[in-house]
């Protein structure tokens, strides 16, 4: 059997990459996807721990996370569409009207 810590390492790597994606990509859709990636990394860790502690709670959490992710995507994409309508761009750097 592969040790769970390996999965966790993968989870860390994926999470880090996801975070990196949020920070360096300007395309709102890609940023969004990176967030999904981070969620996935977390889900992976959940499942791995579920396995470790021989409990279904972790898996059930993944289930809930997916639901939330689905809702988030629905609203998030709607937002992006709405923003695009007014700004005609999905470049997050264009959305700097809150500049201090």
């Amino acid at each position, binding site marked *: 059997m592969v040790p769970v810590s390996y999965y966790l390492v993968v989870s860390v790597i994926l999470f880090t990459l996801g*975070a990196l994606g*949020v*920070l360096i990509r300007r395309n709102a859709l890609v940023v969004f996807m990176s967030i999904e990636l981070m969620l996935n990394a977390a889900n992976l860790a959940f499942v791995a721990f579920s396995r470790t502690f021989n409990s279904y709670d972790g898996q059930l959490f993944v289930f809930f996370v997916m639901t939330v992710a689905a809702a988030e995507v629905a609203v998030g994409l709607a937002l992006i569409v709405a923003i695009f309508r007014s700004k005609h761009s999905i470049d997050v*750097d264009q959305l*700097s*009207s*809150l500049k*201090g």
Partner: protein
Amino acid sequence: MFFSETSTSGLFFNLVPWIVFAPVVGLLINLIIGSKLGEKGVGAIASLASGSAFVVAILQIISLNAHPEGAVVKVAEWIHIGNLAIDWTFRIDTLSVTMMMVVSGVGTLIHIYAIGYMHEDVRFKHDEGRYRRFFIFLNLFIAAMMILVSGNSYMMLFVGWEGVGLASFLLIGFWYDMDTLGRPSFANSNAAKKAFITNRVGDFGFLLAAMMMFWKFGSTDFDLVFAKVVEVAAHEPWVILWITIFLLVGVAGKSAQIPLYVWLPDAMAGPTPVSALIHAATMVTAGVYLVTRSAPIYTLSHDAQYIVATVGAVTALFAATIAAGQYDIKKVLAYSTISQLGFMVAAVGMGAFVAGMFHLITHAFFKALLFLSAGSVILGMERGHHHLPHGDHHEIFDPGDMRNMGGMRKTMPVTFWLYMIGTLALAGIFPFAGFWSKDEILLDAAKVFPHVYYLLAIAAFFTAFYMGRQIWMVFFGEARHAAAAHAEESPAVMTVPLMVLAALSILGGALNLPYIHTLTNWLEHTVKVVEHEGEVAAWLETSLGGLNPWVALISTIAALLAIFISWLLYGRTPLKAGQIDPLKKMFGPIYYGMENKWFIDEAYWFVFVDRYVDLARYLAQTIDWDFWHEWFHNNIIAAGFRGFTRFLAQLVDLGIVDVIISRWPVAVAQWLSEKLRALQNGFVRSYALSVLVGVVAILGYLLLNMK
């Protein structure tokens, strides 16, 4: 000479508080239910109260005959603090009982007289409700005077001393809403106030003397003071001198001596019985009693004796000169009283205590007689005025002015004879009471202080003169006013007490006749009679048992001569209505001074009263109100505070506090936000970066601190 209280057993000594309680009970009865008793009842209660005191005094004499050393009766504690012990203690000795006798005896007679006098007086003044008040005050006076003469300490004496001052104030101001002529005015109440305040000046001296006694002798009880007085005199003679001088101030106030005599003439504003009782017979002699009582102190200081005797003698002469220039029948008697008090003070001042007391007693008789007779004359005038046919009662009519009188021996014969007896007694004509007592004073003065003798002798001459003048003006000649012509004799309730007094004025001299010396022997138990060794003139060696024929002869001749001169001036050619006094024609400016009391009142008014009023007004208005209350408060305290607050607000608050607390932090915040503003660039990604920085940092911190 300490008395033990056990000696009082079986005697009447224990009754002595009743000389005070009796009049107090009388006044309380009249105060509470007097309004229901009617005039007769009120008068009877008051006279009975005074009479009871007289009875108690007689009982004391009986006791004293058995126990001549006397007794003290303690009623209650008064002021006890530390070593200060003042009690309500009565003292019975020959001196105090003598005074009790005079006060209650003359007092009772005057009470009875007043029943009649006030009955008419309140009707002439149209205020019958005040009848009761008069007797309440009169009883109050008797009570206070009894405290004065029977107290065993200077402080209890002082209680009576001020108490009689109060009674005097109330009675002088009895007709407080008018002047002596019955017009609405502050005049009578001013006279009352003047009397009280002048007396207070005297009391001030008395107080200082009492305080000095306490701190030097350890007590104000007579016996304790006298026990230490010799010892203190040896170490600190100045103490004795000052005490005597302070006491003299008190004496001057109460017994109307120079310089505080000014209140007594004004005190004639009171009803005539008051003038007789308080301002002639009793209260004003309190000073004489005080000096006699303080004999052990006075005899220790020759200077003190000299001063007192001189003050008395000067007063005697000075007042006599003024008396000769007065027109008001009572004013003449008032100045005469001052003059006679001068005789007494001079006597006790030079150590002739018995002579002083003797004169005090005889004077009480004949001066009360004179005043009451004068009151009878005045009421007679009032009655006459009342019965005038035209009934014009609103004209200003002075029933006491001698210029309105004349020829009254026909309309008021009883009063005339009584007045004559009083006059002869006062003038010192043999064998009336005044002769014996005045002679004794002159004799002693001739022995001790020659200058006092000369002053007194001249005063005696003036005395006879002004009394003669009065007799001629009032009773002889023709009536100068219709009222005098219609005057009516007074009722028996007034004349009977006068007859008693007349009898006493005639026979009073028997109290201390030469060779017999009843009074001297009597008082010897209390007052040590001091034999003087002064420079005795050769002609005095002929003195026989206390009667020097030369002194007696000279004074008698002088008195007769004075009466003769007065007859020449006033009796031979009686005054006509509106005529100028013959004396004035002879001695214009001098008489002007006599007539106007030598302007002493005006001088006092100018020097003291006006100055004090000015000072008080200046202090009150300028200093206290305008300066201290207004200016200082507004300009220094309030304005100072306002200035201070402005300083705080403008300089401190805006200049320092505001800068430190708000401006500097604002500047810092502005600068900082200017810089930090750059962070707020609006880029979501950069915010996300910040979040990640936070995440990394917090995570790093947790990891580093993980156990």
